[in-house]
């Protein structure tokens, strides 16, 4: 287990370094710069701006400066938001996207697991067909359709829920459902599949033969093995939820990192793009690592390996 962890960490750092390097050069290769605008700035002003952000130095020197900044956790100044640093900005935005991701994950787990277990217990019943169809629908409807639809029903036709912003718990319901719906649907289908397979196995029959209560059979014995596909899916799913919130943040006007990431790319805010990519890279790789560890802990076969 220790060797396994060490090996994974060993992969972590070089991958991150490669990502930083590629991002650094790629954004600077893209046509257009942070100071291009409809009303063109004069060559004198442009030269001053570039000098201010040290863009007049050779590219390799800039790269070295950036790396040494990163070593001190200094992500540089934002090109588009002159009075803010990228670190300050990321620290402001990231917690909101994480919060949104956690709520969406909670929603998708509660509804996904619940629907999956129920339909596996009543296979081919009306409940099962209903839940399966609903899950299919959840997978098919993209967030940019579901979000405005929910806004229409709960916010505009009926005055039930707030539709913009990220302040009270009520504000967080619709965005979390919108973001989590597709994942809830995946989880429901996986749980149903995993549970059906598990419930037909010998050790479940043994458990029932021993006279255990059905709830104990299902929740204690069945679930543990039945949700393994879900656990494996959880790492990428969490990463997807945390990094895939751009559309939802735009629809519900949530000041998260997703919006910032896309806008900074359009604005060629070099340092902000690099900073956001770095944060996302750490998140995605970290979560996949955690999911591997949990899987190893759940499944004795992986642990033994």
């Amino acid at each position, binding site marked *: 287990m220790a060797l396994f962890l060490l090996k994974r960490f060993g992969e972590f750092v070089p991958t991150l370094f490669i990502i930083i390097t590629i991002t650094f050069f790629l954004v600077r290769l893209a046509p*257009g710069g942070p100071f291009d605008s409809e009303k063109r700035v004069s060559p*004198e002003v442009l030269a001053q701006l570039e000098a*201010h952000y040290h863009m007049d130095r050779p590219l390799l020197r800039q790269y070295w400066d950036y790396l040494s900044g990163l070593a001190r956790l200094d992500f540089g100044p934002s090109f588009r938001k002159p009075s803010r640093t990228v670190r300050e900005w990321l620290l402001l935005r990231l917690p909101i996207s994480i919060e949104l991701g956690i709520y969406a994950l909670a929603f998708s787990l509660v509804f996904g697991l619940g629907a999956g277990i129920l339909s596996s217990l009543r296979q081919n019943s009306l409940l099962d067909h209903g839940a399966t169809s609903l899950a299919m629908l959840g997978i098919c409807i993209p967030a940019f359709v579901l979000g405005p639809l929910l806004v229409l029903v709960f916010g505009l036709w009926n*005055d039930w829920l*707030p539709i913009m912003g990220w302040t009270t*718990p009520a504000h967080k319901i619709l965005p979390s*459902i919108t973001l989590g719906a597709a994942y809830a649907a995946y989880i429901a289908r996986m749980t149903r599949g995993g549970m059906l397979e598990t419930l037909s196995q010998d050790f479940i029959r043994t458990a029932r033969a021993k006279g255990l209560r059905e709830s104990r059979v299902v929740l204690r014995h069945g679930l543990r093995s039945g949700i393994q596909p879900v656990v494996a899916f959880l790492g990428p799913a969490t990463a997807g939820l945390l990094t895939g919130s751009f559309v939802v943040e735009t629809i519900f006007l949530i000041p998260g990192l997703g919006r910032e990431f896309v806008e900074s790319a359009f*604005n060629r805010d070099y340092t902000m793009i690099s900073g956001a990519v770095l944060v996302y890279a750490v998140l995605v790789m970290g979560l996949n690592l955690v999911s591997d560890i949990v899987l190893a802990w759940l499944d004795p076969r992986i642990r033994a390996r």
Partner: protein
Amino acid sequence: MHTHIRNLITFLACAVILPWTPGCSYRSPGDQNILQAGNGAEVQDLDPHVVSGVTEHRVLSSLFEGLTDADAATLEPVPAVADRWEVSDDGLHYTFHIRPEARWSNGDPVTARDFAYAWRRILSPAIASEYAYMLYCLKNARAYNEGKLRDFDQVGVFAADVETLRVELENPTPYFLSMQNHFAWFPVHQPTIERFGRMDERGTAWTHPGNLVCNGPFILDDWLPNEKLSVRKNPYYWDAGSVLLSGIDFHPIENLQTEDRAFRSGLLHLTATIPLHRVAVYRRDRPEILHIHPYFGCYFYRMNITRPPFDNPLVRQAFALSINREEIVTNVLKGGEQPATAFVPPGDTKYPAIDVLCFDVERARTLLAKAGYPDGQGLPPVNILYNTSEAHRTIAETVQRMWKENLNADVRLLNQDWKTYLSSMNTLDYEMARSAWIGDVADAVNFLECFQTDVGNNRTGWSSPEYDALIDQAYAEADVTKRSVLLQQAEALLLEGGPIIPVYFYSWKFLMSPEVKGFTPNILGYYRWKNLYLDPGE
């Protein structure tokens, strides 16, 4: 950690329960007297010497005030920080008298020195202000900004005493007074600037809530980036008695559909714009909230005259004559835009608009034949470059069809993201590009000076010594009528075989709740915030 768990449980409970509890309202306007305004993109900063753009202008004009302000309807200068002023006969010397009761939001008096300091700051090369050129009408300002002159005493601004500001201009500039409400001219509070950095340092924390000291009708209360920027009434403002709003909340909502939904759910009193397809719906169902006013902006196509076929003025003219602007405006845009028969939109009261462009297919075909392309034979394919936008694409498709039908021209569409598109234009890597110009001041020269030789905004490769001379003469001309004639000649030159094809004049479109009172439209889209108030009675 506990609060997170508590939040989570609350959330889950709400998720299950709330959808089944109709009747409870979340549309809480809070303080009834605070205007909720949509404001497009997030403001970059609040330093008037660093920012550029319309969203920043909206916010800054609530926080700061210049020597004069503009009348909300006519845009004529009205007294603001200066309560009176004198102009010399040659139009080159101005003396402003600062009103003694003008105060900064910390109680300090606003003095003539604050203006001299602010103008020195924006013109300092090191601060690299994108809007420093607005001040180039000051004597020697350009040389100072470009680093060719080191001694600021030679620049045409001088604080004679606390209440007297003397200004010397390079040229008689008829719009000098009316552009004083632009943020580039706003004063800044020296002790505050220097508490957080050097005078000419970019991006210090002086603009953050709690630090910012300003002199306008409102003060900065809170700034939650990408969420909300709140300003509240400034008790130290010299005219605080006539400010009726308690404050304004500016909401940065870049997505048009999201802003539209926010307005419909009652979160906003005022939007920054309207999605194109919603205009017809509001016109039919709720005309009382739909605002469409003329706007001092022109939508046009640039042609790269360094590349065939647009290196030939006859081809340029043929293309300009063969689009039906009326059809674009009435059938495609449908939002109160006006067909552009010239480059300068109507609205500059000193400038009689010229009417040059028309829809004349016969003449266009003759010109094209004369250029060596009878019935479009041999005409190389042309790409229309545009930045990503539904509206730009629709308009490009329409003119593509018109040019195919009328000139038998092979026109293709080329879409690029905003910055790539700008880069292509700057490097003249295009044949034809969708463009726009929105006036900073209500003066024709603001449009026409873009196409002087080697001006950064030219971006077409076009150069005409005759045109350059006319604009230079207009700069130096003190007589308003003679100046207009010079500018009209220049504009005619620009349109007859020049590098642009004007398509339409913009309209200023937005939604405003009927409870907002005191609003007066103007062609610059300028909000005089202190005039507005809320009357929920209706």
